[in-house]
Structures are given as structure tokens and as C-alpha cells.
């Protein structure tokens, strides 16, 4: 896989976030390029969700700045942020209106078609499977056709078939020029789909580069990214 086009003015500079005395994110900076698929990996508590929440504008950083307003990015939180008593279409329509999408009904129809949920449009979200709920969750994140889509562990609750369909969908977004930033614990997904990796540990950004560069940095088996990740963390005292 190759790194995509030149960086767009979508950047994070020196982001720091504290929860009480605990530093969840420490001086994190990076830039994103158009159509780039960026995987954020790291152990539990590394700060992946905190970083995505700050990029989405759901959390304010204590220090540092973003080059964009949070709502300019599409955001898909880890747990589906949906109203289970509303139907699929009602959820989409509500968020389309709140996002002030110019033609909410057209946006709803487009997202129903893109996510393959047209035949379930009138069904209450609470009655859908976890996979379909995640599709609605992603659809809401894409309603305003954002240039950047932020996904927090998007495949965590999906079965292998649903995961496959999800990554096809995300890859297609990238091909259409949408920048996708996702966090995951599944290193194989990063190896397979990500153009670039951001490795976080204890709130610090330890590495940024392609998966192959991460493997080379450790000098181990070039076909085993997971071993490279563990080795890299070990080398850096994590």
C-alpha cells in the first residue's frame, strides 16, 4: 500500500488532555492527507479514544490545537450513538437536520442506499443486530459528507462477514477522497487497510509511519506486525 496524496490542512498540534492528575494525551501532533486511511493502535489506556474524541470536538484538549472545528469531521463513536426507539430513517433524519445538511431527505436516502439499509429504514434501531446498528452509526457520521471520518474501533462488535463488508465500505470512502482515521486492537486490520499507523502508548505518540516502516523499525519478522508492535513498545519501555 502506498501513502496517499499531499497533506491537507487538517492537523493536530501538541494535543494534551488530563483527567484529574492522569495525563491521557501528551503533546500529540500529526497531519492527515486527503483519502488517507490512518490506523491508531496501542495498548488499552493508550489514549486512542481520547484522541479521536478531541479530533471530533466531543472533548476539548487542555493544551494544543486543531486546524479544524470538531464538527467538520464525521465521528463514529465506539458504542453506537443512536436512539433505539427511533427508526433507522428517523435517526438519520434527526442528525441530518441537526447537522443542517442542505437536503436532509436526500442525505437520508443516500446513506440508506450506501449502507444497504433501505429495506430496514422504518425499523426501530433497537431491534437491529449489532452489525446493522454499527452501519447506522457510521451512516450518521457520513451524513454531511465530511472530508474526514473518525471511527473508534468500528469493527469491534462485528462478525467476520460484517467486518469484511465494513472495510470494503471504508476503503471505498478512501478511494473517493475521504480521509479515514480509525482506532483498533486488531493489528491485522491495520496491516491490511491502513496507509499509515499512529502508535500511542500512555498518551504519547511513539510512532507514525506505514505498517512496513513500523516492522522495519523493530527489525523483526517483516510479515508479523503484531510482533513488531509488541517489540516496539518493549523497546520504548511500555
Amino acid at each position, binding site marked *: 500500500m502506498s501513502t496517499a496524496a499531499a497533506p491537507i490542512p487538517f492537523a493536530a498540534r501538541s494535543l494534551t488532555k488530563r483527567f484529574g492528575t492522569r495525563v491521557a494525551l501528551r503533546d500529540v501532533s500529526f497531519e492527515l492527507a486527503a483519502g488517507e486511511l490512518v490506523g491508531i493502535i496501542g495498548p488499552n489506556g493508550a489514549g486512542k479514544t481520547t484522541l479521536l*474524541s478531541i479530533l*471530533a*470536538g*466531543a*472533548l476539548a484538549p487542555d493544551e494544543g490545537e486543531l486546524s479544524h*472545528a*470538531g*464538527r467538520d469531521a464525521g*465521528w463514529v*463513536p465506539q*458504542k*453506537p*450513538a*443512536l*436512539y*433505539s*426507539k*427511533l427508526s433507522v430513517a*428517523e435517526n438519520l433524519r*434527526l*442528525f441530518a*437536520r*441537526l*447537522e443542517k445538511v442542505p437536503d436532509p431527505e436526500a442525505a437520508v436516502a443516500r446513506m440508506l442506499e450506501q449502507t444497504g439499509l433501505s429495506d430496514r429504514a422504518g425499523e*426501530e434501531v433497537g431491534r437491529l443486530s449489532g452489525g446493522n446498528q454499527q452501519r447506522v452509526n457510521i451512516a*450518521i457520521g457520513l451524513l454531511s459528507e465530511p472530508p474526514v471520518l473518525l471511527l473508534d474501533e468500528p469493527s469491534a462488535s462485528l462478525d467476520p462477514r460484517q467486518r469484511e463488508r465494513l472495510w470494503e465500505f471504508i476503503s471505498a470512502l478512501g478511494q473517493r477522497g475521504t480521509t479515514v482515521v480509525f482506532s483498533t486492537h486488531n493489528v491485522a486490520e491495520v496491516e491490511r487497510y491502513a496507509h499509515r499507523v499512529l502508535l500511542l502508548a500512555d498518551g504519547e505518540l511513539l510512532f507514525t509511519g506505514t505498517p512496513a516502516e513500523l516492522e522495519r523499525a523493530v527489525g523483526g519478522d517483516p510479515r508479523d506486525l503484531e510482533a513488531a508492535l509488541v517489540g516496539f513498545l518493549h523497546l520504548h519501555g511500555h
Partner: protein
Amino acid sequence: MRWLLIKDLQILRRSPLLVGLLIVYPIAIALMIGFALSSPPGKPKVALYNEVPAGRGTINIGNQKLDVAGYASELLNSIQPVKVHSAAQAIAAVRDGQALAAVIIPAALPQQIQTLITQGVGSPTVRLYLNTKDPIEKQFVDQAISSRINTVEQAVSKQVLRVAVNDLQEVLNGGSVEILGQKVPLLGLRNARTIVQGTLATLPRDSPLRAALGQVISFADLAIQGLGFAKPVLGSIGTPLTVQETQLAGRTTPTDTYAAAIAVIVSLMFVTMLLAAGMLAVERSENAYARLVRGLVTPGRLLSEKIVLAGGCATLVTVVMAAFISLFIHLDWSRFELWVLALALGGLAFGALGVAIGAVAREVSAASLMAFLVSLPVAFVALVPASAVSGAIKTVLDVVAFLFPFKAALEAIANAFSGTSPGIGLPLVHLAVLAVVFAGLAALAMRRFAAR
């Protein structure tokens, strides 16, 4: 805010059980409170047995007869009598639980009263047996019977005094007295004095009787004067005090209207607080809160929407409830716009308190439970009568009641229902201020807890 309101109404429409409970439960509680406050306590079941044989219940006072046993039957006005045929049966009825108490009028009662009146000795006694396990019920029965016995006592005393006053008048002015079925004329002090005065005028100047008769006339003058005062003095003992009631301040709302106001405000409080707390918690339990506040909706607007939603729904429910209550209790329909104003402002204040609670809780069930737990003492503190507690505690309760919307809402709606004092202006301002304060606290709580 419009889209959020529509969304919440859609959610409520699809939660019929929740909405049903939310409306039926507080209304049921409110109606129970209303009925309890507006219904007078029933008459206690009492077994009354009169041992005085028929025709033997009268006593003689001067030349008049008084039916003591008849007066004792006045007790029937305060009780629901249980039929018994002996003292033993009366006591058994209490033991068996058929009656809460037994009152036994002993056969000797008329004689005891007669002795007390004529000789000033003895203590006429009525026997009372109680068997209530509930201390409050015991107090109620005790008070009902004691109060009626006092009334009987007063009636007998009054009658005795009236007879005594009549006798004094006859001693003073003359009349007749019945002895062995024969009317015997009574001369009277004034007539006796006139006779002595006439006799004195016929006596020679140097008669030795003049000085003695002069003393008799002086004594008669003093006695006539003294007994002349005795009549009004004795008359006043029968009713020594007259209470002239003037209400200078406080509530003049009729009791049943006040009970209706309590019922309506209890409903308003429960519906608003549970709805506001629950609907705000829904945003977090559905994980939608973070998605909303990342620029789509400000936290302040979200809170306002929940307050308006809860207050609006509760106002609607309680206006309908008040209209229903007005079928049974007089509520002043000409002040309908004030009903709506009082309920709407009360709804906003309770709604703000509800969202302050909802902002702290993450789950709907936790928010509902917290709202419920806060509601009960808020209502209780506002309903404790001022006379029921001592000074320091009263001050504390007054301060606590002032800090929450229940008392102000109750005063506002009681006034709106009846148009009586105290006025509606201050409670409405109070409610508006509380709405702002609690909304501010809710915003702080959101900032503190919602990001977690």
C-alpha cells in the same frame, strides 16, 4: 430545539408503558393525598352501654329536674355505635375488635351528680375502655370521646347554673316552690324588705324594735344588691369566654381547594422531575450526548429542551387533572389562565431540578430513582405544618422548603384555584428564580459529569 423536541416526543410515544406509569402513578399518589386531606375522619366504632335504668336518669336541682342519662346519650353524635346489651358485652366488643372503644355509663351516675350538686362531694365517673393497637388511632378515638364528654359536662353545668340562677331570682323577688306536689308561695327578699319597712313606719319613735328592724332592712338592702350581681356573674360562668376570630395573615384557601392544589402539585412534581431527569439521562445512556454537543447542540440548549419538554407535558397532564378535579371540588374557572401560568412556571422549576438530577446520573433508571428520592422529601418538607415542629426545626424546614419549588408552586396554584390570599405574584417570581438557579446547577453538573 424543535428537532430534539420532536425526537423526544417520538420516543415517548413509543414508550407507552413508561408514559402510562409516569402519568398514572403520580396521579394515583396525588389523588390519595387529596382524598386523605379533604375527607374528614370517620366516626369511630364505639360500644355504648347505659346502665342507668329507664326513668332513673333524672336529678333534682331546686325545683327542676335534669335528665343526665339523656345528656350522656349525646355521645352518639360523635361515634358509630355498636349495639350491646350489657357492660360485659361492651367490653367484649372492644376485646374482639368489633369496637375501638366502649363507654359505660354507670347506674349510679345520676346519684353521683346529685350528691356533687347538693353536697359538693364525689366525682361522677363514666367508664371508657380502649383497645387500639395503632397509637394514632388511639389518640383519635380518645379525643373524639373526650371532646364529646366535655360537651356533655358543659351542658350539665350550664343547666345546673341556670337552675341555680332561677332559684336565686326567686329568693330575691319571690315566686313559688313545689313541696310534696303542692305549690307553696315564696315571699322573696325584696317583698320581705317592703313588709319590714312598712312595719317600721308604724312603730312609735321610741319603740325598742326600731333599731333591730333597721338592721334587718340594712341587711336586706345589702343582700338584694349582692344577689342582683349574682345573676350576671353566674350566667357568665356558663360561657366564660367568647372567641372572636379575625384572620390577619396566612392562608384563607378552602380546605378542599387546598387539598386539590396539593394533589395537582404532587403530580406536577413527579411527572416533571421523572421526565426531565429520565429524558436527559437517555441522551447519555444511548451514547448520543457526546455526538450532540460536538457542535450540533449546545449543552444549554439541550437542557432547555428537556426542561420545556418535561414542564410542557406535566403542565398538560395537570391542567387536565385539575379540570377533572373541578367536577368534584369548586375551582375558580374564571382564573384558568392563572392555573396554566402557575402550572407552567412550576413545571419549569421542577423541570430544571429534574435535569440537574439527570445531569448527574448516567442511566435512565438511576436518574429516575434519584428524581423519585429527591421528590419525596421536597414535598414532605413543604407540607409539614408550622405548628407541628419547634422553632429551630421550623426555621430549617422553612429554609429547605424555600430552596425547592414545591411550596412556591403550591401557593401559586392554591391562589390560582381560589383567588384567596396569599397572592400569586411572589410565588410565580420565586418559581422563575428557582428555574434559573436549578438550570444553572444542571449546566454545571453537565460540565462536571457528562464528559465522563
